[in-house]
């Protein structure tokens, strides 16, 4: 890895992602790196996980110093999974503390954790707030029991208002995550979920179209004909409904799948991904980006624990991006944001074609910026293809 020579690299904003690879139940659609056993052998367990993560933070710091990329405070921290709240709150606090002590958090740092509505209590949320967390993102997914059942989600939908209230009381900003396009979900089901979300007045909403990845149990069920597959047209209709209802309720989209009431309620950590800021991903299978280099850790918690215990960075593979790849990513990622993507004069003709097709905003296009329309957001891959291929 060599990024020390990249001019201005040290000026790039820096964030930390912490992966918690444990769940109590594995959902049929999930292809994330997560495990349901509490004991994984070889020194890897839920109990010892925080220690491994803390050890990686130290190793990461040494690497940043070696590469001349140290000295940047952390602007955002995101605990994702898996189910981070399956770990004792003290473990989460300990990991966050390691990040703070090693690199320092900026005064208004955004610190988020994902949480499952059925594994948190008022006391946990208060403890998280006390430890420095600012934000919680609940994996609500749907308000409709049969949809939750298809998704293997175990929580009781009636519990969501409760946990949202507790989070508010604790002083945490609240985001609700939804999934649309689940097999068997009707447009009315989806409307019910959206209405349930809006009734709770969260600060932020994410809505992701279900993708059924090969290797998941749901994929097998679809292949066997036990479940219908996802349908792009159905998902498009649901996206449009979501965007309409959210906009009516005062939520503005700032990224294809994310809406916030006010700009300062946007998830800054999320935006950092699309802006290609630097971040270090801690934990098994976590991805990192540093000054044009992408790398990711070994996937299995046991291999991860052993590497870290041996004092080695647990990196599985490293990718040094070429200039063309950097340029491609710039378009691929940046196009997803509401601010749009400023483009050079060489793209002018394409930009006007895209505007004529209703895929980008014509006014922005006139100013040389590609800002997706609602139709363009749904066809973002087409837009990117036209701009880079």
């Amino acid at each position, binding site marked *: 890895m060599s990024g020390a020579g990249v001019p201005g690299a040290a000026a790039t904003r820096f964030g930390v*992602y912490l*992966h918690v690879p444990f769940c109590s139940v594995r959902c049929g659609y999930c*292809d*994330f*790196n997560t495990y349901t056993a509490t004991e994984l052998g070889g020194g890897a367990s839920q109990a010892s996980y925080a220690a491994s993560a803390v050890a990686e933070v130290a190793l990461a710091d040494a690497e940043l110093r070696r590469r001349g990329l140290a000295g940047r405070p952390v602007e955002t921290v995101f605990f*994702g999974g898996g189910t981070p709240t399956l770990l004792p709150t003290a473990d989460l606090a300990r990991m966050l503390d390691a990040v703070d002590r090693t690199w320092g958090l900026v005064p208004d740092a955004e610190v988020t954790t994902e949480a499952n509505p059925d594994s948190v209590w008022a006391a946990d949320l208060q403890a998280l707030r006390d430890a420095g967390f600012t934000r919680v993102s609940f994996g609500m997914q749907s308000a409709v029991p049969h949809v939750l059942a298809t998704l293997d989600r175990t929580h009781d939908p009636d519990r969501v208002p409760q946990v949202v209230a507790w989070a508010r009381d604790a002083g945490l900003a609240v985001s609700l995550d939804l999934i649309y396009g689940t097999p068997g979900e009707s447009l009315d089901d989806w409307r019910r979920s959206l209405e349930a979300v809006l009734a709770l007045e969260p600060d932020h909403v994410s809505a*992701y*179209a279900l*993708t059924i990845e090969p290797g998941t149990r749901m994929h097998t069920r679809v292949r066997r004909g036990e479940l219908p597959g996802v349908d*792009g*047209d159905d*998902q*498009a*209709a649901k*996206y449009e409904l979501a965007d309409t209802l959210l906009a009516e309720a005062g939520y503005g989209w700032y990224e*294809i*799948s994310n809406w916030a009431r006010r700009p300062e309620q946007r998830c800054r950590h999320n935006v950092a*991904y699309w802006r*290609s800021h630097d*971040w270090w*991903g801690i934990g098994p*299978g*976590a*991805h*990192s*980006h540093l000054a044009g280099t*992408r790398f*990711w850790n070994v996937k299995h918690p046991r291999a991860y624990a052993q590497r870290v215990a041996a004092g080695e960075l647990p990196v599985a593979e490293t*990718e040094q991006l070429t200039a063309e*790849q950097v340029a*491609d*990513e710039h378009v*691929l*990622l940046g196009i997803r944001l509401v601010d749009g993507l400023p483009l050079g004069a060489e793209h002018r003709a394409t930009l006007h074609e895209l505007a004529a*097709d209703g*895929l980008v905003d014509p006014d922005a296009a006139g100013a040389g910026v590609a800002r997706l329309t609602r139709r363009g*957001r*749904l*066809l*973002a*891959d*087409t837009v*990117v*293809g036209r701009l*880079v*291929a």
Partner: protein
Amino acid sequence: MPPILSQSAQADRIAPAATPPELLRNFCIIAHIDHGKSTLADRMLQLTGVVEERQMRAQYLDRMDIERERGITIKSQAVRMPWGVVDETTGEVVPYALNMIDTPGHVDFTYEVSRSLAACEGAVLLVDAAQGIEAQTLANLYLAMENDLAIIPVLNKIDLPAAQPEKYAEELANLIGGDPEDCLKVSGKTGEGVPALLDRIVAEVPQPVGDPDAPARAMIFDSVYDTYRGVVTYVRVVDGHLSPRERILMHSTRATHELLEIGVSSPEPRPTAGLGVGEVGYLITGVKDVRQSRVGDTVTNAAKPASEALPGYADPKPMVFSGLYPIDGSDYPDLREALDKLKLNDAALTYEPETSVALGFGFRCGFLGLLHLEIVRERLEREFNLDLISTAPNVVYDVTMEDGKEVVVTNPSEFPEGKIASVREPLVKATLLAPSEYVGTIMELCQSRRGSLKGMDYLSEDRVELRYTLPLAEIIFDFFDQLKSRTRGYATLDYELAGDAEANLVKVDILLQGETVDAFSAIVHRDKAYAYGVSMTEKLKELIPRQQFEVPIQAAVGSRIIARETVRALRKDVLAKCYGGDISRKRKLLEKQKEGKKRMKNIGRVEVPQEAFVAALSSDAGGGKETAKK
């Protein structure tokens, strides 16, 4: 068994260039594919001692891989074999030189067959004792009978348990006249009956007749390009004598060449002091292109030329056309080079550069028939490593406009617009042989292909010969496949060109979002335009990926739309999220998309993957392989 003559003093009497016509016998073998011609030839080569046991390999004479694999002979050859027969009055062994001229076994090469037959005085009619005669064999038999060849009927594969020699001997006797007992029974596999066959050839095939003192005249019956030696020309000398180093003249082109080498094949080439009346052998002049040494042409001495050519010469005329395109556009120069090389060995192959909106740069190629097309395509793919797509084959149309202007159409997309007075298309005379139970189904098929019945005969109690006139265009589509599947593979087919006729033909265009896709234009009978339009639009609907706008697919005759399908607009293609910051995975998808885009063709604004065109075209071209097994 008679002595092998190559060791004997008698052999001098049949030395090449010095063999009197009375000791020469020129014959060919007429047989259906798989009836065992090559195996029988192998046995003859062994029995006469020209190929030793240890050099023997199966199907010795079939040189090209494709020939051996498909079990068919594409190009003919000639082999000179010695054979001794005991003279009944003197008791001495008289040596004979037998020239076996191998004939190509497929309908596409009828002209070449006719030239091979013209080089012989006799023909062995070889029929599988388990299957009986087939349409192809019958056609060639009639051709041999028209040429006044002595016919020796032979039933092969008598070693097979399913053999019915008595039944088929009867059938042969009915066909050529004579007694079922005259029919020889052999096994190419075991060699049984083969010496008797060689004796019969000496006894029944007339000796060649010619004037040794007349100016030299030799007929070219085959011409093969060899990488090392240039063109090797196979001839049958009719009059006079050809000698090494003399200058020869090709009658049709008036080109002269020096005879660098002259010889006989036995079966490897052996230079000789020349070739005399009735002899068969090869010539090498150093020319590099078989077009300079055309099958059917007359070779004569340049200094003392014969005034009159031998009869029967005709220019090879392509009858079936197809566009050949490299799947990877950058292979275009390689395709050109490969065609240039194939042409050296294939006087009937024609090609011209052609551009298609859908398929890019390629060539419009002319072939003698479907098998010829298949063979050329297969050789291009196999020997030159090219991945090709061929457009649906079509025939030549003569279009007369109302203003009297005439247009020859070899590519449907060139079918003229405007007021057309008439369109003429080539016809064939087809002969179909099948068990009588299939007569009804065959008639139905021929009717649906615009055929008209010309006659019907029972060859035996349960086998029928049907004669039809059909448009060639109807045969080159999937006729043979249909025939085979409707008759459980029992029917056989032969056809020959039989002029042309006016027909009610129209061009059907396929349009994507209003733009014509040239590769899918077809000339069809007006009654079938709708069916073609519907099947093509339905097929393309399945193959064309959804775009960000609706794509109408239409079939049109002129400006009239006869069928329509729609590829609905794509509404969503974006991936919702990136998994835990796994940007690499997203970028790789984009890189794949970029790679795929290189293989996209733009029809107007519609992006169509090359694979879609390939799939739409190849599902129509089906049947070529089956045809080859005919």
